[in-house]
């Protein structure tokens, strides 16, 4: 079993499901011959033909809207938005239709579709290619928003997303597309959507993160272990609907929480998690909830992006502060 990267895992999951389910198709800008600008769909058109791996015209609202139409007929589209920064023309279709078709037809029409998009900073990309706007979608009832943090989860969660009878926004942390490899068996086994994963068990403090930031978070946890601080690390994975119970249980145990995210802070997913802890677990807290976050400013172009992105050092500092608080 060869070790594969996160993006290869995404590819493998799509290929797997297209192989077993005729109704699964892929579409998007440059997904065909080119295999996607990040090669997420590499080889799929050769394998499954132009009818099932479709290069679309350049129009995101169209990609989303057409996927809705197809899904209503029982086709299971996996639509790619080339970068999350270009998802906004599709927001109307996502919010006004994708999220609510089952609801508004009282279950008559359902939309088994996946909308994939690479997101996040740190790869020296041009303007509009590095933002993290998962909070927008996590606020929309009727959507599921999934963010895998490593190859195994990418494989299992992508399978689950395709099989899910409802629309899933699948956000891929492109900074870690290729930085770790896992041995992933192509066995068709999916991972549950709607559950956190516990990356590391610990007793002193709960670190909560998702996507690419989990890597810095895990490194920080490792370093802290050497200092004698025992961190529990939670990969949120499904950012909506949020599995708050796992987080609350952990915080009940550790009494301390630090949330690590790349997105701007105000009105973010981190705010949501903090609010939930504050509502349901406030008196378990021995320290204020720590938050390591991108800033409430525009994602800078790449020369300054390192100044924007949370680092292992910033995490260490915040965790130490939280652990030392009394």
């Amino acid at each position: 079993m060869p070790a594969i990267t996160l993006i290869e895992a995404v590819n493998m999951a799509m290929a797997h499901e297209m192989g077993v389910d005729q109704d699964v198709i892929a579409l998007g800008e440059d997904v065909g011959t080119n295999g996607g600008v990040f090669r997420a769909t590499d080889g799929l058109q050769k394998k499954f033909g132009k009818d099932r791996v479709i290069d679309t015209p350049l129009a995101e609202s169209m990609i989303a809207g057409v996927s809705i139409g197809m899904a209503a007929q029982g086709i299971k589209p996996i639509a790619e938005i080339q970068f999350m920064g270009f998802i906004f023309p599709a927001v109307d279709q996502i919010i006004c239709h994708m999220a609510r078709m089952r609801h508004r037809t009282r279950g008559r029409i359902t939309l088994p579709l996946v909308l994939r998009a690479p997101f996040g900073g740190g790869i020296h990309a041009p303007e509009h290619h590095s933002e993290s706007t998962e909070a927008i979608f996590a606020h929309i009832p009727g959507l599921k928003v999934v963010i895998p943090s490593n190859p195994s989860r990418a494989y299992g969660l992508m399978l689950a997303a395709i099989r899910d009878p409802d629309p899933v926004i699948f956000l891929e942390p492109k900074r870690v597309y290729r930085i770790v490899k896992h041995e992933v068996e192509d066995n068709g086994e999916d991972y549950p959507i709607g559950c956190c994963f516990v990356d590391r068990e610990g007793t002193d403090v709960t670190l909560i993160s998702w996507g690419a930031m989990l890597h810095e978070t895990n490194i920080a946890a490792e370093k802290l272990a050497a200092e004698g601080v025992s961190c529990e690390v939670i990969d949120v994975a499904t950012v909506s609907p949020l599995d708050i119970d796992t987080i609350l249980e952990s915080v009940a145990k550790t009494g301390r929480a630090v949330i690590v995210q790349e997105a701007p802070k105000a009105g973010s997913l981190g705010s949501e998690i903090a609010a939930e802890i504050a509502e349901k677990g406030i008196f378990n807290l021995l320290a204020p909830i720590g938050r390591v976050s991108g800033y409430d400013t525009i994602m800078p172009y790449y020369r300054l992006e390192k100044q924007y992105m949370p680092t292992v050092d910033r995490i260490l500092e915040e965790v130490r502060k939280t652990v030392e608080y009394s």
Partner: protein
Amino acid sequence: MTTVAKFDIKYIQYIDKDGKPTTKKLPKLAKDIDALKTLYRSMNRVRVLDTKAYALQRTGKMGTYPAALGQEAIGVGFGSALNKEDVLVPYYRGQASMIEHGVKMEEVLLYWGGDERGSDYQNAREDFPIAVPIATQLLHAAGVAKAMQIRNEQRCVATEIGEGGTSEGDFYEAINVAGIWNLGVVFFINNNQWAISVPSEIQTACETYAQKAIAAGVECVQVDGNDIIAVRDVAEKAYEKARAGKGPTLVECISLRLCDHTTADDARRYRPDGELDEGWKEEPILRLRKYLESLKAWTEEDEKAMQEELAAEVQEAVDNYLNTPVDRPEAMFDYLYEELPTRTLEQREYAIQVAAKKGA
């Protein structure tokens, strides 16, 4: 300077406003008295329903409602030409086509009466619910047609939009993708000349709405939308072409909105004097009646009988609507996902409690 491409836009009309044929090459339909009577009845049915819906709204028994007054030939024309297995993707003023394709009148009323169950069509299971966000539905129609194409089905899709809605990007993205993918979808533009208070002179510099299809390499035609024979005939041909895998058509149907935009609007604020008087002379129902009368196929007694029957039919739908009790509060949650997340489940329980307290 050489010419590299040429286009022209055709206009189709068979019956003029006085019910007189404008050409000798009439389609078969023009001689099919039974079919014409059915269309005539259908147009009248929509008009009765709209009138009733207006009255319900005025007496607090309905929400905002968009009537199709003066535009009945369009929806009835293209809606009736669909086969049962075709799919309709309507816009909000689409009751005429919806009813033709099997949506019940009480479902239309339920929808505008503020009840989601109105979109759980009992007969037209594959048809889309009404799209309020303008132009979005055209992309769904293209997607449905794409699914049919993938599966090699001989079905087609019809969708409708107002002329104002053609200014939205989604309109253009939809016709463009339909063109390049050669989809079996027919786009009908109800050019009723108003987008709420905005006339075409403010909407676009185009001479016709049909020509917008040229931007997508899609075949197009302009039709007298008050002439149901023309609308229906053009629709039939476009559907045949679509089902045969020969691609999309865009059909501009010229009509006039003889009513307010919706019950929430007052067109007197912006409609020029005299427009309505002129408009009423062109309207589709009277025109077809005159034509039928000229064929000696319709009498005052027929009219009376039909109106009575329609009144009863619509009244039954209204009664069914009014007798539908408000849905359970937990219905707010029950169709959000196949399975409700724990968190929202708690909210569901809470909402039930709150409702129970209120009830008590």
